[in-house]
Protein backbone atom coordinates (compact mmCIF):
# COMPACT_ATOMS: atom_id res chain seq x y z
CA UNK A 1 0.00 0.00 0.00
CA UNK A 2 1.30 3.38 -0.92
CA UNK A 3 2.20 5.75 1.87
CA UNK A 4 -0.04 8.74 2.35
CA UNK A 5 -0.06 11.91 4.37
CA UNK A 6 -2.71 14.33 5.48
CA UNK A 7 -3.25 17.52 3.52
CA UNK A 8 -5.09 20.59 4.78
CA UNK A 9 -5.67 23.55 2.54
CA UNK A 10 -7.14 26.51 4.41
CA UNK A 11 -7.58 30.17 3.67
CA UNK A 12 -8.45 32.91 6.13
CA UNK A 13 -12.00 32.91 4.85
CA UNK A 14 -12.77 29.21 4.59
CA UNK A 15 -11.49 25.65 4.79
CA UNK A 16 -10.89 24.43 1.26
CA UNK A 17 -9.60 20.89 1.34
CA UNK A 18 -8.81 18.25 3.92
CA UNK A 19 -7.87 14.68 3.14
CA UNK A 20 -5.24 12.05 2.42
CA UNK A 21 -2.80 12.31 -0.46
CA UNK A 22 0.15 10.46 -1.99
CA UNK A 23 1.95 13.50 -3.25
CA UNK A 24 1.57 17.25 -3.32
CA UNK A 25 3.02 19.84 -5.68
CA UNK A 26 3.17 23.47 -4.66
CA UNK A 27 4.58 26.66 -6.22
CA UNK A 28 7.11 27.78 -3.61
CA UNK A 29 9.00 31.04 -3.99
CA UNK A 30 12.25 29.22 -4.73
CA UNK A 31 10.63 26.93 -7.31
CA UNK A 32 8.01 24.23 -7.67
CA UNK A 33 8.10 21.72 -4.84
CA UNK A 34 6.99 18.12 -4.84
CA UNK A 35 6.19 16.81 -1.37
CA UNK A 36 6.14 13.07 -0.73
CA UNK A 37 5.26 11.42 2.59
CA UNK A 38 7.92 11.71 5.32
CA UNK A 39 9.30 14.91 3.89
CA UNK A 40 11.52 16.78 6.29
CA UNK A 41 9.80 19.65 8.15
CA UNK A 42 9.72 22.66 5.89
CA UNK A 43 8.26 26.13 6.00
CA UNK A 44 8.11 28.26 2.89
CA UNK A 45 6.23 30.96 1.10
CA UNK A 46 4.08 30.25 -1.95
CA UNK A 47 3.84 32.16 -5.19
CA UNK A 48 0.56 32.57 -7.03
CA UNK A 49 -0.04 29.34 -8.90
CA UNK A 50 -1.65 25.98 -8.52
CA UNK A 51 -1.33 23.43 -5.78
CA UNK A 52 -1.82 19.92 -7.12
CA UNK A 53 -2.82 17.16 -4.75
CA UNK A 54 -2.49 13.52 -5.82
CA UNK A 55 -5.22 11.74 -3.95
CA UNK A 56 -5.01 8.15 -2.79
CA UNK A 57 -6.89 6.76 -5.76
CA UNK A 58 -4.62 8.28 -8.44
CA UNK A 59 -7.03 11.20 -8.80
CA UNK A 60 -5.55 14.63 -8.93
CA UNK A 61 -7.14 17.79 -7.60
CA UNK A 62 -5.94 21.23 -8.49
CA UNK A 63 -6.33 24.31 -6.34
CA UNK A 64 -5.47 27.84 -7.24
CA UNK A 65 -3.62 29.90 -4.68
CA UNK A 66 -2.66 33.54 -4.96
CA UNK A 67 0.17 33.18 -2.51
CA UNK A 68 0.38 31.91 1.04
CA UNK A 69 2.49 29.66 3.23
CA UNK A 70 3.32 25.97 3.06
CA UNK A 71 4.05 24.01 6.20
CA UNK A 72 5.38 20.50 5.84
CA UNK A 73 5.67 17.93 8.58
CA UNK A 74 6.43 14.24 7.93
CA UNK A 75 2.78 13.23 7.89
CA UNK A 76 0.89 16.48 7.76
CA UNK A 77 1.08 19.16 5.10
CA UNK A 78 -0.74 22.45 5.57
CA UNK A 79 -1.26 25.03 2.88
CA UNK A 80 -2.18 28.39 4.40
CA UNK A 81 -3.53 29.97 1.26
CA UNK A 82 -4.17 33.65 0.88
CA UNK A 83 -7.01 33.05 -1.52
CA UNK A 84 -7.65 29.60 -2.88
CA UNK A 85 -10.37 28.27 -5.10
CA UNK A 86 -11.23 24.98 -6.72
CA UNK A 87 -9.18 24.34 -9.83
CA UNK A 88 -12.39 23.64 -11.67
CA UNK A 89 -13.39 27.23 -11.18
CA UNK A 90 -10.07 28.52 -12.36
CA UNK A 91 -11.70 30.88 -14.82
CA UNK A 92 -13.75 32.34 -12.08
CA UNK A 93 -10.62 32.62 -9.97
CA UNK A 94 -8.93 34.53 -12.75
CA UNK A 95 -11.89 36.85 -13.01
CA UNK A 96 -11.90 37.35 -9.27
CA UNK A 97 -8.21 38.09 -9.24
CA UNK A 98 -8.64 40.75 -11.88
CA UNK A 99 -11.60 42.20 -10.04
CA UNK A 100 -9.64 42.22 -6.82
CA UNK A 101 -6.83 44.03 -8.49
CA UNK A 102 -9.23 46.55 -9.95
CA UNK A 103 -10.86 47.08 -6.59
CA UNK A 104 -7.49 47.47 -4.96
CA UNK A 105 -6.54 50.09 -7.51
CA UNK A 106 -9.81 51.88 -6.87
CA UNK A 107 -9.59 51.85 -3.11
CA UNK A 108 -5.87 52.11 -2.51
CA UNK A 109 -5.09 55.77 -2.22
CA UNK A 110 -1.51 55.24 -3.26
CA UNK A 111 -2.53 53.79 -6.60
CA UNK A 112 -4.95 56.58 -7.41
CA UNK A 113 -2.39 57.87 -9.78
CA UNK A 114 -1.95 54.46 -11.42
CA UNK A 115 -5.67 54.27 -11.92
CA UNK A 116 -5.72 57.63 -13.63
CA UNK A 117 -2.80 56.57 -15.79
CA UNK A 118 -4.53 53.33 -16.70
CA UNK A 119 -7.61 55.28 -17.68
CA UNK A 120 -5.58 57.52 -19.98
CA UNK A 121 -3.91 54.48 -21.54
CA UNK A 122 -7.29 52.89 -22.06
CA UNK A 123 -8.62 56.02 -23.71
CA UNK A 124 -5.60 56.07 -26.00
CA UNK A 125 -6.05 52.44 -26.95
CA UNK A 126 -9.71 53.02 -27.76
CA UNK A 127 -8.78 56.01 -29.89
CA UNK A 128 -6.21 53.93 -31.78
CA UNK A 129 -8.71 51.15 -32.36
CA UNK A 130 -11.23 53.63 -33.64
CA UNK A 131 -8.67 55.09 -36.04
CA UNK A 132 -7.80 51.66 -37.37
CA UNK A 133 -11.49 50.89 -37.81
CA UNK A 134 -11.97 54.17 -39.59
CA UNK A 135 -9.09 53.52 -42.00
CA UNK A 136 -10.42 50.06 -42.73
CA UNK A 137 -13.83 51.44 -43.57
CA UNK A 138 -12.23 53.98 -45.89
CA UNK A 139 -10.21 51.42 -47.77
CA UNK A 140 -13.26 49.17 -48.04
CA UNK A 141 -11.99 46.49 -45.71
CA UNK A 142 -8.90 45.69 -47.78
Amino acid at each position, binding site marked *: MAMTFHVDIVS*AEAEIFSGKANMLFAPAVMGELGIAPRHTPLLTRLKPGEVRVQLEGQDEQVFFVSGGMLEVQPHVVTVLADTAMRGKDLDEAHALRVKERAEKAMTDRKTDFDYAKAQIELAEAIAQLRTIQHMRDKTGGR
Partner: protein
Amino acid sequence: MAGAKEIRTQIKSIQNTQKITKAMEMVAASKMRKAQDRMRATRPYAAKMRNVVHHMGKSHPEYRHPYLIERPVQRIGLIVISTDRGLCGGLNINLFKKVVAAMKEWHAQNLEIEIAIIGAKAVSYFNRLGGNVVSQASHLGDAPAVEELIGSVKVMLDSYDKGHIDRLHLASNEFVNTMTQAPGIEQLLPIVGDEDDANLKHHWDYLYEPDAKEVMDDLLMRYIESLVYQGQVENIACEMAARMVAMKAASDNAGTMIDELALAYNKARQAAITQELSEIVSGAAAV
Protein backbone atom coordinates in the same frame (compact mmCIF):
# COMPACT_ATOMS: atom_id res chain seq x y z
CA MET B 1 -64.83 60.95 20.30
CA ALA B 2 -61.72 63.06 19.58
CA GLY B 3 -59.70 60.98 22.02
CA ALA B 4 -60.67 57.78 20.26
CA LYS B 5 -59.51 59.05 16.89
CA GLU B 6 -56.13 60.12 18.21
CA ILE B 7 -55.67 56.74 19.81
CA ARG B 8 -56.53 55.04 16.52
CA THR B 9 -53.85 56.94 14.58
CA GLN B 10 -51.37 56.15 17.31
CA ILE B 11 -52.17 52.44 17.05
CA LYS B 12 -51.68 52.63 13.28
CA SER B 13 -48.26 54.23 13.60
CA ILE B 14 -47.13 51.71 16.21
CA GLN B 15 -48.34 48.90 13.97
CA ASN B 16 -46.20 50.28 11.17
CA THR B 17 -43.18 50.42 13.46
CA GLN B 18 -43.85 46.86 14.54
CA LYS B 19 -43.89 45.70 10.93
CA ILE B 20 -40.48 47.25 10.39
CA THR B 21 -38.94 45.82 13.55
CA LYS B 22 -40.36 42.38 12.72
CA ALA B 23 -38.87 42.51 9.25
CA MET B 24 -35.52 43.64 10.67
CA GLU B 25 -35.62 40.81 13.18
CA MET B 26 -36.11 38.24 10.45
CA VAL B 27 -33.40 39.75 8.26
CA ALA B 28 -30.99 39.78 11.20
CA ALA B 29 -31.83 36.16 12.02
CA SER B 30 -31.01 34.93 8.54
CA LYS B 31 -27.88 37.09 8.35
CA MET B 32 -26.78 35.82 11.73
CA ARG B 33 -26.88 32.24 10.48
CA LYS B 34 -24.65 33.16 7.56
CA ALA B 35 -22.31 35.18 9.75
CA GLN B 36 -21.99 32.27 12.16
CA ASP B 37 -21.09 29.94 9.29
CA ARG B 38 -18.49 32.43 8.14
CA MET B 39 -17.15 32.69 11.67
CA ARG B 40 -16.78 28.93 11.83
CA ALA B 41 -15.09 28.86 8.43
CA THR B 42 -12.31 31.17 9.62
CA ARG B 43 -11.43 29.00 12.60
CA PRO B 44 -9.36 26.25 10.90
CA TYR B 45 -7.01 28.83 9.38
CA ALA B 46 -6.41 30.62 12.67
CA ALA B 47 -5.99 27.32 14.51
CA LYS B 48 -3.45 26.00 11.96
CA MET B 49 -1.65 29.32 12.06
CA ARG B 50 -1.48 29.20 15.83
CA ASN B 51 -0.01 25.70 15.68
CA VAL B 52 2.69 26.74 13.24
CA VAL B 53 3.57 29.88 15.19
CA HIS B 54 3.69 27.83 18.36
CA HIS B 55 6.03 25.27 16.80
CA MET B 56 8.23 27.99 15.46
CA GLY B 57 8.49 29.77 18.77
CA LYS B 58 9.71 26.52 20.30
CA SER B 59 11.89 25.10 17.56
CA HIS B 60 13.80 28.19 16.65
CA PRO B 61 15.20 29.66 19.84
CA GLU B 62 18.24 31.38 18.31
CA TYR B 63 16.19 33.84 16.30
CA ARG B 64 13.66 35.84 18.28
CA HIS B 65 11.29 37.78 16.15
CA PRO B 66 10.42 41.27 17.47
CA TYR B 67 6.77 40.19 17.60
CA LEU B 68 7.69 37.66 20.26
CA ILE B 69 9.79 39.94 22.47
CA GLU B 70 8.33 41.87 25.38
CA ARG B 71 9.71 45.39 25.59
CA PRO B 72 9.15 48.33 27.93
CA VAL B 73 5.83 49.90 27.05
CA GLN B 74 5.49 53.61 26.35
CA ARG B 75 2.82 53.67 23.72
CA ILE B 76 0.00 51.28 23.07
CA GLY B 77 -1.76 50.50 19.81
CA LEU B 78 -5.42 49.59 19.94
CA ILE B 79 -7.58 48.22 17.14
CA VAL B 80 -11.28 48.74 17.84
CA ILE B 81 -13.80 46.74 15.84
CA SER B 82 -17.37 48.01 15.86
CA THR B 83 -20.43 47.64 13.68
CA ASP B 84 -21.30 49.88 10.75
CA ARG B 85 -24.95 50.28 11.68
CA GLY B 86 -26.86 50.85 14.88
CA LEU B 87 -30.09 49.34 16.18
CA CYS B 88 -28.24 46.44 17.69
CA GLY B 89 -28.86 46.98 21.39
CA GLY B 90 -25.97 47.87 23.65
CA LEU B 91 -23.42 45.98 21.61
CA ASN B 92 -21.22 48.92 20.60
CA ILE B 93 -21.76 50.90 23.77
CA ASN B 94 -20.72 48.01 25.98
CA LEU B 95 -17.55 47.61 23.96
CA PHE B 96 -16.78 51.34 24.03
CA LYS B 97 -17.29 51.45 27.79
CA LYS B 98 -14.74 48.69 28.15
CA VAL B 99 -12.34 50.45 25.79
CA VAL B 100 -12.69 53.77 27.60
CA ALA B 101 -12.07 52.09 30.95
CA ALA B 102 -8.91 50.46 29.58
CA MET B 103 -7.79 53.75 28.08
CA LYS B 104 -8.26 55.51 31.39
CA GLU B 105 -6.14 52.87 33.07
CA TRP B 106 -3.39 53.28 30.48
CA HIS B 107 -3.57 57.03 30.80
CA ALA B 108 -3.10 56.65 34.54
CA GLN B 109 0.10 54.72 33.80
CA ASN B 110 1.26 57.58 31.54
CA LEU B 111 1.00 55.47 28.42
CA GLU B 112 0.08 57.03 25.12
CA ILE B 113 -2.54 55.37 22.95
CA GLU B 114 -2.94 55.08 19.21
CA ILE B 115 -6.26 53.85 17.88
CA ALA B 116 -7.12 52.11 14.63
CA ILE B 117 -10.82 51.98 13.96
CA ILE B 118 -12.85 49.49 12.01
CA GLY B 119 -16.59 50.18 11.65
CA ALA B 120 -18.61 53.37 11.23
CA LYS B 121 -20.01 53.45 14.78
CA ALA B 122 -16.57 53.57 16.36
CA VAL B 123 -15.52 56.21 13.84
CA SER B 124 -18.24 58.59 14.97
CA TYR B 125 -17.78 57.70 18.65
CA PHE B 126 -14.05 58.30 18.74
CA ASN B 127 -14.33 61.39 16.59
CA ARG B 128 -16.60 62.82 19.26
CA LEU B 129 -14.54 61.51 22.14
CA GLY B 130 -11.22 62.59 20.73
CA GLY B 131 -8.16 60.43 21.02
CA ASN B 132 -5.27 59.69 18.74
CA VAL B 133 -6.91 57.93 15.80
CA VAL B 134 -4.38 56.79 13.23
CA SER B 135 -6.54 54.83 10.82
CA GLN B 136 -10.18 54.33 9.96
CA ALA B 137 -11.98 51.74 7.90
CA SER B 138 -15.71 51.29 7.59
CA HIS B 139 -18.48 49.82 5.45
CA LEU B 140 -16.77 46.52 4.88
CA GLY B 141 -20.11 44.78 4.40
CA ASP B 142 -21.48 41.58 5.86
CA ALA B 143 -18.85 39.40 4.22
CA PRO B 144 -15.59 41.33 4.55
CA ALA B 145 -12.58 40.19 2.54
CA VAL B 146 -9.21 39.90 4.23
CA GLU B 147 -7.77 42.47 1.82
CA GLU B 148 -9.97 45.15 3.26
CA LEU B 149 -8.51 44.72 6.73
CA ILE B 150 -4.88 44.48 5.65
CA GLY B 151 -4.54 48.26 5.53
CA SER B 152 -5.70 48.83 9.10
CA VAL B 153 -3.51 46.04 10.41
CA LYS B 154 -0.51 47.17 8.42
CA VAL B 155 -0.62 50.66 9.88
CA MET B 156 -0.31 49.17 13.35
CA LEU B 157 2.30 46.55 12.44
CA ASP B 158 4.42 49.20 10.74
CA SER B 159 4.38 51.43 13.77
CA TYR B 160 5.22 48.41 15.93
CA ASP B 161 8.14 47.59 13.65
CA LYS B 162 9.36 51.15 13.91
CA GLY B 163 9.15 51.01 17.68
CA HIS B 164 6.42 53.62 17.66
CA ILE B 165 4.09 51.41 19.67
CA ASP B 166 5.25 48.69 22.03
CA ARG B 167 2.08 46.70 22.46
CA LEU B 168 -0.97 46.05 20.31
CA HIS B 169 -4.44 45.22 21.53
CA LEU B 170 -7.63 44.25 19.76
CA ALA B 171 -11.01 45.28 21.16
CA SER B 172 -14.02 43.43 19.78
CA ASN B 173 -17.04 41.45 20.78
CA GLU B 174 -16.88 37.74 21.39
CA PHE B 175 -19.80 35.64 20.24
CA VAL B 176 -20.79 33.52 23.24
CA ASN B 177 -24.26 32.60 22.03
CA THR B 178 -27.22 34.27 20.39
CA MET B 179 -28.26 35.97 23.62
CA THR B 180 -24.80 36.84 24.93
CA GLN B 181 -22.00 38.83 23.37
CA ALA B 182 -18.98 39.55 25.51
CA PRO B 183 -16.91 42.68 24.79
CA GLY B 184 -13.24 42.04 25.33
CA ILE B 185 -9.73 43.38 24.77
CA GLU B 186 -6.99 40.94 23.90
CA GLN B 187 -3.30 41.44 23.35
CA LEU B 188 -2.04 40.80 19.82
CA LEU B 189 1.56 41.93 20.12
CA PRO B 190 3.93 40.84 21.50
CA ILE B 191 2.45 37.42 20.91
CA VAL B 192 1.74 35.77 24.19
CA GLY B 193 2.37 32.05 23.93
CA ASP B 194 1.30 29.66 26.64
CA GLU B 195 4.68 28.25 27.57
CA ASP B 196 4.41 24.60 28.41
CA ASP B 197 7.94 23.28 28.73
CA ALA B 198 6.85 19.66 28.51
CA ASN B 199 6.65 19.95 24.74
CA LEU B 200 10.23 21.14 24.49
CA LYS B 201 11.58 17.60 24.78
CA HIS B 202 11.60 16.72 21.11
CA HIS B 203 13.70 19.30 19.38
CA TRP B 204 13.19 19.70 15.69
CA ASP B 205 13.23 22.61 13.35
CA TYR B 206 11.84 23.46 9.97
CA LEU B 207 13.82 23.99 6.84
CA TYR B 208 13.14 27.59 5.90
CA GLU B 209 12.94 28.80 2.35
CA PRO B 210 14.26 31.38 1.54
CA ASP B 211 15.35 32.00 5.16
CA ALA B 212 13.94 31.93 8.66
CA LYS B 213 13.58 35.66 9.07
CA GLU B 214 11.64 36.27 5.89
CA VAL B 215 9.34 33.32 6.41
CA MET B 216 8.72 34.30 9.99
CA ASP B 217 7.96 37.93 9.04
CA ASP B 218 5.40 36.75 6.53
CA LEU B 219 3.87 34.19 8.77
CA LEU B 220 3.47 36.43 11.79
CA MET B 221 2.02 39.21 9.70
CA ARG B 222 -0.59 36.78 8.36
CA TYR B 223 -1.18 35.49 11.85
CA ILE B 224 -2.05 38.95 13.16
CA GLU B 225 -4.17 39.63 10.10
CA SER B 226 -6.06 36.40 10.59
CA LEU B 227 -6.74 37.29 14.22
CA VAL B 228 -8.10 40.69 13.26
CA TYR B 229 -10.13 39.17 10.44
CA GLN B 230 -11.56 36.63 12.82
CA GLY B 231 -12.42 39.42 15.24
CA GLN B 232 -14.20 41.29 12.48
CA VAL B 233 -16.20 38.27 11.32
CA GLU B 234 -17.11 37.40 14.88
CA ASN B 235 -18.19 40.97 15.51
CA ILE B 236 -20.56 40.76 12.55
CA ALA B 237 -22.12 37.61 13.98
CA CYS B 238 -22.46 39.47 17.29
CA GLU B 239 -24.06 42.44 15.53
CA MET B 240 -26.66 40.28 13.84
CA ALA B 241 -27.45 38.37 17.02
CA ALA B 242 -27.73 41.57 19.04
CA ARG B 243 -29.90 43.18 16.40
CA MET B 244 -32.15 40.15 16.27
CA VAL B 245 -32.63 40.22 20.02
CA ALA B 246 -33.12 43.99 20.13
CA MET B 247 -35.66 43.91 17.32
CA LYS B 248 -37.53 41.04 18.91
CA ALA B 249 -37.78 43.05 22.12
CA ALA B 250 -38.94 46.08 20.13
CA SER B 251 -41.62 44.05 18.35
CA ASP B 252 -42.82 42.61 21.67
CA ASN B 253 -42.94 46.07 23.24
CA ALA B 254 -44.88 47.39 20.28
CA GLY B 255 -47.32 44.50 20.74
CA THR B 256 -47.99 45.28 24.41
CA MET B 257 -48.33 48.96 23.60
CA ILE B 258 -50.89 48.19 20.90
CA ASP B 259 -52.83 46.01 23.35
CA GLU B 260 -52.91 48.79 25.95
CA LEU B 261 -53.94 51.37 23.39
CA ALA B 262 -56.65 49.09 22.01
CA LEU B 263 -58.08 48.81 25.51
CA ALA B 264 -58.02 52.56 25.96
CA TYR B 265 -59.57 53.03 22.53
CA ASN B 266 -62.44 50.66 23.29
CA LYS B 267 -63.06 52.34 26.62
CA ALA B 268 -63.15 55.76 24.97
CA ARG B 269 -65.49 54.47 22.27
CA GLN B 270 -67.84 52.94 24.82
CA ALA B 271 -67.80 56.09 26.97
CA ALA B 272 -68.75 58.12 23.91
CA ILE B 273 -71.63 55.77 23.11
CA THR B 274 -72.86 55.83 26.70
CA GLN B 275 -72.71 59.61 26.73
CA GLU B 276 -74.66 59.85 23.50
CA LEU B 277 -77.29 57.45 24.80
CA SER B 278 -77.74 59.32 28.06
CA GLU B 279 -78.02 62.57 26.11
CA ILE B 280 -80.76 61.10 23.91
CA VAL B 281 -82.61 59.62 26.89
CA SER B 282 -82.46 62.84 28.91
CA GLY B 283 -83.50 64.79 25.79
CA ALA B 284 -86.53 62.52 25.31
CA ALA B 285 -87.44 62.85 29.03
CA ALA B 286 -87.35 66.65 28.75
CA VAL B 287 -89.83 66.68 25.87
